[in-house]
Structures are given as structure tokens and as C-alpha cells.
């Protein structure tokens, strides 16, 4: 117990406290000016909004991938299973450069899309895409073991009771997976909010358009405006904390209804 707390303090709490201490260099009005400047607000909106959207997409796509990996036997299944982990392992800068090359206006995918009038690289859409890319393994890896443990008998029971396939999925399978789905969503979201490396390459980083909050922090740091940087960080921290707290609550609520039948 003591050891856990010490570890936690050393690794997480003390650095975070430092953040608040440094922010305290600013007066209250300076703090508000910094965090409510339109550039900061835009950056925050881009980071949180797109991260949320990306996590939602990952939720749906992740569930489909998990379903295929767990329930079907097809050639190359193990390979696909391994590929899911690539966004975990790949250096984020590599991922960012690869995505940028692919989606740039002369890239393999960017060129056909550009001819349709869709511009991906150097727009918020590109940021969104990078966030989807790095977030997908979180949903897959949290839901996968739970789905494996979910007995096929549960579905058979539902079928015998007259449930249609759709009713079986929406009333039995998805609710059984809810705690894991929420965890996966929270992790994918948190990762996307904090993502820096892969995003900055594809984002274009235009202030007020495609500039993410972590980048703004780095910019402030390079301008030696440390307190401004920490002020933005504090806002991100508090908002992230509140969202994760909320998701945790939701998850606990789902979990008390779904303690493992053992």
C-alpha cells in the first residue's frame, strides 16, 4: 500500500503538482486570458472534439474487428491479429509521416480523394485520421478477451428463447461487453487527446484551423512562455480527468450489473 502510493506520487502526482505550481506564476486574469484566447480554445476544441469523434469511430470499427478476429476462422487471422498492434509499436512520427505521404495530394490515397474534392492531409480530417489510427488497438485489445470469454451458450440460450439475431446482439452480446467497450473507448480517447507525434505531421498545424493543443504547448515552450504552456496543460489535464472520471463512473455502473458469472 505504502509502496504503491510512493510509486504513484513519484511517477504521477509530483510531476502533476509541478504543473499546477508553475501555472501559479500567472495571475488569475493572465491565466484566463491565456486559456480563453481564441487560438487556445480552437486548439482545445480540435484536440478534444476530434479525439472524441475518433474514439467513437474506433469503438464501432474496433467491435467489428474484434468480432471477426474472435468469431471467424479465416486464413491469415493470426496475421491480422498481430497487425492490430502495429499502432502500439510503431514510433508515432513514423506513423505520422506514413499517413501524410499516403494522404498528401499526390499520395496513393490522397490523389484519388483529392479528385473527389476531399482534402485529407493538412486539415482537421487528417488529424482525425491519425487519431483513429493510433486508437484502434485500445478498443480491440480491451474487448477481445471479454468476447472470447463470452460463452456461445449465451447466444444459443437467447435464440432458443425466440430472440432474433438483432435482438441477441443488442440485448445480450453488446450489454455483456459494455464495461470492456467503455474501457476501450476511454483509452482510445485519452490516447488521441494526448497524441502528438503522428498528428503534427499530417495536421498542417494552421493556428485556429488544424492546430492541436499539445502542439500549442510545445510552441509556447519554444517561446519560453512556460507558464502559458502549463496553463494550457492544466486545462487539458482537468478536462481529461473529468471525462475519464465520467467514463469510469459509467463503467462501474455497467460493471455492477455484469459481475462475471463464475
Amino acid at each position, binding site marked *: 500500500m505504502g509502496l504503491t502510493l510512493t510509486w504513484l506520487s513519484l511517477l504521477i502526482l509530483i510531476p502533476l503538482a509541478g504543473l499546477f505550481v508553475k501555472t501559479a506564476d500567472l495571475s488569475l486574469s493572465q491565466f484566463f486570458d491565456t486559456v480563453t484566447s481564441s487560438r487556445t480554445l480552437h486548439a482545445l476544441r480540435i484536440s478534444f472534439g476530434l479525439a472524441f469523434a475518433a474514439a467513437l469511430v474506433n469503438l464501432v470499427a474496433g467491435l467489428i474487428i474484434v468480432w471477426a478476429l474472435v468469431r471467424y476462422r479465416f486464413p491469415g487471422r493470426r496475421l491480422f491479429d498481430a497487425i492490430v498492434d502495429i499502432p502500439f509499436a510503431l514510433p508515432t512520427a513514423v506513423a505520422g509521416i506514413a499517413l501524410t505521404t499516403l494522404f498528401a495530394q499526390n499520395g496513393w490515397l490522397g490523389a484519388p480523394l483529392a479528385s473527389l474534392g476531399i482534402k485529407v492531409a493538412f486539415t482537421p480530417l487528417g488529424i482525425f485520421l491519425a487519431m483513429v489510427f493510433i486508437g484502434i488497438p485500445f478498443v480491440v485489445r480491451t474487448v477481445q478477451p471479454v468476447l472470447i470469454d463470452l460463452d456461445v451458450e449465451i447466444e444459443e440460450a437467447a435464440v432458443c*428463447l425466440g*430472440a432474433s439475431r438483432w435482438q441477441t446482439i443488442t440485448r445480450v452480446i453488446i*450489454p*455483456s461487453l*459494455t464495461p470492456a467497450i467503455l474501457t476501450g473507448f476511454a483509452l482510445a480517447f485519452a490516447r488521441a487527446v494526448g497524441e502528438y507525434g503522428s498528428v503534427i505531421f499530417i495536421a498542417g498545424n494552421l493556428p485556429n484551423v488544424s492546430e492541436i493543443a499539445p502542439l500549442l504547448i510545445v510552441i509556447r515552450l519554444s517561446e519560453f512562455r512556460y507558464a502559458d504552456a502549463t496553463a494550457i496543460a492544466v486545462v487539458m489535464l482537468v478536462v481529461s480527468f473529468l471525462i475519464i472520471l465520467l467514463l469510469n463512473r459509467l463503467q462501474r455502473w455497467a460493471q455492477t*450489473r455484469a459481475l462475471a*458469472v463464475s
Partner: protein
Amino acid sequence: MTIEVRNIVKQYGAFKALDNVDLRVADGELLALLGPSGSGKTSLLRIIAGLDWPDAGEVSFDGENALARGAGERHVGFVFQHYALFRHMSVFENVAFGLRVQPRAVRKSEAQIRARVKELLDLVQLDWLANRYPSQLSGGQRQRIALARALAIEPRILLLDEPFGALDAKVRKELRQWLRTLHEEIHVTSIFVTHDQEEALEVANRVVVMDKGKIEQIGTPGDVYDNPATAFVHSFIGESIVLPVDVRDGQVKLGHRPLNIDAGSAVGPSKLFVRRHDMQIGPVGEGAFEGTVRRVRTFGPIQRADIALSDDDTLVEIDAPRDRPLTTGDAISLQPRRYRIFAGQE
């Protein structure tokens, strides 16, 4: 509802799970499918339920082809060995599930559903658990809820797959009794699968003994115990003494010694089966076998003795009443009161 199964074949790769199985189940019957694991009993049950499909053969309910319908349209209640309760739903919602997923046109009103669930929970005597979740129940309670859930849709047939298999011995005994009583109350045609002979003999009206994808015998519990149709049934149900014998010209020989017993219809290398309690102990020279008592234990009203037969030193275990106490070293004779000889030594 009568069930008729004709020439069912089911194969998993090279393994024949069911090999030309025929079975008729009468209306209101409580039938046990009994056999060792791999005998095909669960496969047969799942085919009747519509959870699996046979490679060949027919299944009909009341003369109507059941294979034309999916599991959801057969109105069959299925109870799984490991309960398969919906863990995210309360006990109440688990039981209500079958009623809530009905098409809107025939679905009962909320009040009717509540009344029906209450009635079912009363039937399984667990109405006080309505708001709990499956994880908060004991194994026996979970299985009773699973049964209530299966009964909610007013099934025409109730199928139970090793329903007490995951429970401990004491709860098992209680639930067996309870299932019997319940069946007398609701009288729906029921089939349950078990590998436990005691369970089959105690609960069922009729027992179907299966082995290697085939039905070995169908009969009342008394029948399959007293008149086993095959060597398999004799050795699977009840405790038997099994001795390899040779039948030539109507004479039964154990090793080289002729036994003074009737051969019946068996010819050639055969097996002699005697129930442990069907061996009569007598003085030397007055029975078919002679032997020496090696060890004696007493269990309540009986004494169980290991007897080494003098012919080839084979040890046989017999149960005898305690009115003639045996002691280690006694030389005795054994005469089978009832026995069966089945041809073949497989």
C-alpha cells in the same frame, strides 16, 4: 407433444457422433439420455433443439417436420449445463427475456409479463431473488432460474443438457427430486442428458442408454438395470463382476474349468456378467466358483469382500448380507443367482 427422431446421422470429421439413431418420445414423458462422454447424447439433444443440424435423418414434433424450423421457432425450452444466464440482467429480466423478445403483435403487456415472471419465480421457489444478478446466486439457484427462463415461453418440449452436472453432490440430489416433482406439476415432454446413472434411474420415466453414437437400450429404469440388453449396458449401469468365459457346446468355461451354469444363446468367447449382490456364498464344492476371502469391509447392512478365485487368482468384489460373516482366509464357493452371458469379449 411427441417427438420422433428417425435415422439421425451426425458426423464431425471422421468422428461419428450419431450413427442412425431412432427414438420416439411420448407426450408428457420425462426421458433420460444416459451415456459416457462422447456417446452422442448431447449431440442428439442439440439436434432436437435446433442448435445443431443432422447430416441425415428426420426430426418431427407431433408428426410435423421440426427440421424445417430454426431453434427460435421450435418452442423448445433449453437448459444448459453451465446455466447460460444473461449476467448483465437481473433474475427478473432473465426470466422475462423470452417474453420481451416476442414480436410486437403477440407480445404480452408489461403487466402480463410481470405476472408471468412472478408466477414462474414462485414455481421455482425463488421469487425473493427477483432483483439479484446471476453472479449473486448459488449454482443450484442459477440452474433453477435458468429453468424458469426456459419455461417462460411455454415450451412444448423441455430439453436439459447435464442440468446438474456443475453442481455439488448434495444440491444435485435436492434438485433431482425437485425436477421430478416439477415435471409432475407441469407435465411438459422433457428430455435430459446425463452421464450419471443414478440420476437417470432416479428421475426419468424411461432411460435411453447410448454408446458411441448408438442407442444400446431403451427402457424403464427397472428394465435397464435388471435386464440389460447389451454387455455395454450391463457394465455401464450398476456394479458388475465381469469374467471372460468361453462357450462351447452349451458349456461355459472359465479358463479350463467348466462352470455349471446355463450358457443361454451365447457362443464362443463371451463375457459373464453378475451383479455384485447376486453372488450367493456357500461352502466349498457347492457353487460354480471357488475362492478365498482376501479382504472384508462392512458398509451398513452389507459386507463387501474381495474374493480371489482359485482358478486363476482373479479378484472379484462381492456384496453379501452380514448374516454370514466372512473372515479373511475363508475358503468359500460362489454361485451366481442371476447372471447374463454376452457373446464377444470386446
